[in-house]
């Protein structure tokens, strides 16, 4: 009976998380389009609702009602699988991301996370890596030149940054002594992990930009060279899932993990702990700031070439991550 209650509770919570993430992702598209517009001195969506507030709904209706075309010579199974494989794992990362401490409403203790696994960080990384197979499968299954090049480029970039990313997260883990994301946040009550881990933070920024395919590293999409990269042959909602998964959900969730690893999760800003602001609000404020930082980078920088990215990953980011481990080890030896 207790198991049944747990299952029902987790199902309901997962539904809330997934629906909430969908709505958030829809409105993150609006945030991104508004931001991109104003960076280029144009207003962005303006006429659907007040200042374009209903634009995401109009977009969703449009994408859902479009004709769903599948090329004749495509590998049908992989073609269908690819869009789901890009989308589902990136939303599954949410299962291990904690958004705050447990709090009580009307006598119920509410946990603002689905599960607190003691290998949460590894799970998040694993799901993030799996979602990239969606891109590579899409490139292969489309049976067309441009998607193929896009998929191969993504694979080349993937090999580069995954190693650096793996080493970069070692620093915070060493300091916290746990893989659990909740445990990592609780270890940052005093000093945030950004202080000794600044090099790892640079590597993580690089890895998140590369994983979500945002601009300095968006070689797999490269609309100027590759038409649309791996999404060239996709249409309707199968197409819509890719940017939704990569640009919005993955960026959002990986921003959350960045905040948890380096900026103290739901701990308040230093010197502002006396403010009556709950932890979740602090968390979302930080999360939004990091997300906007990624948008800012995206709409500023031009694109690297693939060889430059792999060079950067292997020659700069990997040594930086290793140096970070060394620095953190010394830090732990000195300060405990």
């Amino acid at each position, binding site marked *: 009976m207790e198991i049944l209650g747990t299952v029902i509770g987790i199902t309901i919570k997962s539904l809330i998380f997934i629906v909430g993430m969908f709505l958030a992702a829809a409105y993150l598209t609006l945030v991104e389009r508004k*931001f991109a*517009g*104003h*960076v*280029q*001195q*144009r*207003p962005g969506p*303006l006429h659907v609702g007040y200042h374009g507030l209903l634009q995401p709904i109009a977009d969703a209706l449009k994408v859902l009602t479009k004709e769903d075309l599948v090329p004749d010579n495509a590998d049908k199974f992989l073609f269908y699988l690819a869009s789901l494989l890009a989308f589902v794992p990136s939303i599954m990362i949410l299962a291990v991301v904690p958004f705050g401490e447990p709090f009580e409403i009307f006598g119920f203790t509410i946990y603002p996370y689905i599960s607190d696994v003691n290998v949460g960080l590894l799970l998040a990384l694993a799901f993030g890596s799996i979602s990239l197979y969606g891109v590579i499968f899409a490139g292969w299954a489309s049976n067309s030149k441009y998607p193929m090049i896009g998929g191969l480029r993504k694979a080349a970039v993937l090999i580069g940054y995954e190693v650096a990313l793996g080493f970069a997260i070692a620093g915070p883990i060493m300091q916290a002594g746990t893989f659990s994301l909740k445990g990592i946040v609780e270890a940052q009550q005093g000093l945030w992990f950004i202080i000794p881990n600044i090099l790892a933070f640079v590597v993580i920024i690089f890895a998140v930009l590369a994983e979500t395919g945002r601009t300095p590293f968006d070689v797999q999409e490269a609309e100027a060279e590759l038409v649309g990269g791996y999404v060239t042959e996709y249409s309707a909602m199968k197409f819509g899932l890719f940017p939704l998964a990569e640009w919005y959900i993955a960026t959002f969730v990986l921003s959350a993990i960045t905040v948890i690893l380096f900026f103290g999760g739901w701990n308040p800003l230093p010197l502002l702990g006396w403010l009556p602001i709950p932890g979740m609000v602090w968390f979302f404020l930080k999360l939004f700031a990091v997300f906007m930082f990624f948008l*800012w*980078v995206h*709409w*500023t*920088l031009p694109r690297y070439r693939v060889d430059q990215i792999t060079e950067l990953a292997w020659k700069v980011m990997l040594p930086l991550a290793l140096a970070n481990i060394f620095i953190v080890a010394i830090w732990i030896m000195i300060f405990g």
Partner: protein
Amino acid sequence: MVRVKYVERPDLTNTERIFFIDFIKGMKITIKNFFKKTITTAYPFEKLTPPKRFRGAHGHRVKNGKEPPSFKVLEKFMEINEGESRCVACYMCQQACPVPELFKIEAVQLPNGKKKVLRFDMNLMNCMYCGLCTEACPVDCIIHTDIYETATYHRAGGVAHLEDLSKRAEDFDRRRFNEPDRIWIDDEERSKLWGQIKWS
């Protein structure tokens, strides 16, 4: 002989390389732009008036007493009433046109010996709005107006006939004939007429 000067690509200094100084410079520019006012026009609701020399849809000036002297010479051979297109069917516009097929000009000789223009069709779908026809016209008849919304629901709507052309030019001349001829927006006259456009 073309002389080629080879320039070394300036190398980044170590400080620039380590702290991504060029990235930070670029991001400073974007964030500055983010807080600036937008410079766009909300097009269907808000329309800019083009300059007088704008090469929009074509028009035919009518016989209204403001003709150039060359028209006075040809006038006595033509059957043109007051208020009708002053076209003399000389085919100069078609000769000058890079896509001559878009013109369909027909003229006949009436029993009294005068020439009458029956038909002057322009398929503006093929027109590139280069303005060569307006320069070739000896009687200042075919002109460019400032009308730029030429979209129609059918391809046939893209063909301008003699009456449409005259109406368009009459409309254009009523609005802007007396306006001094100027090149571009920095003119004082222009800003006096409809306000200085703020570009940024």
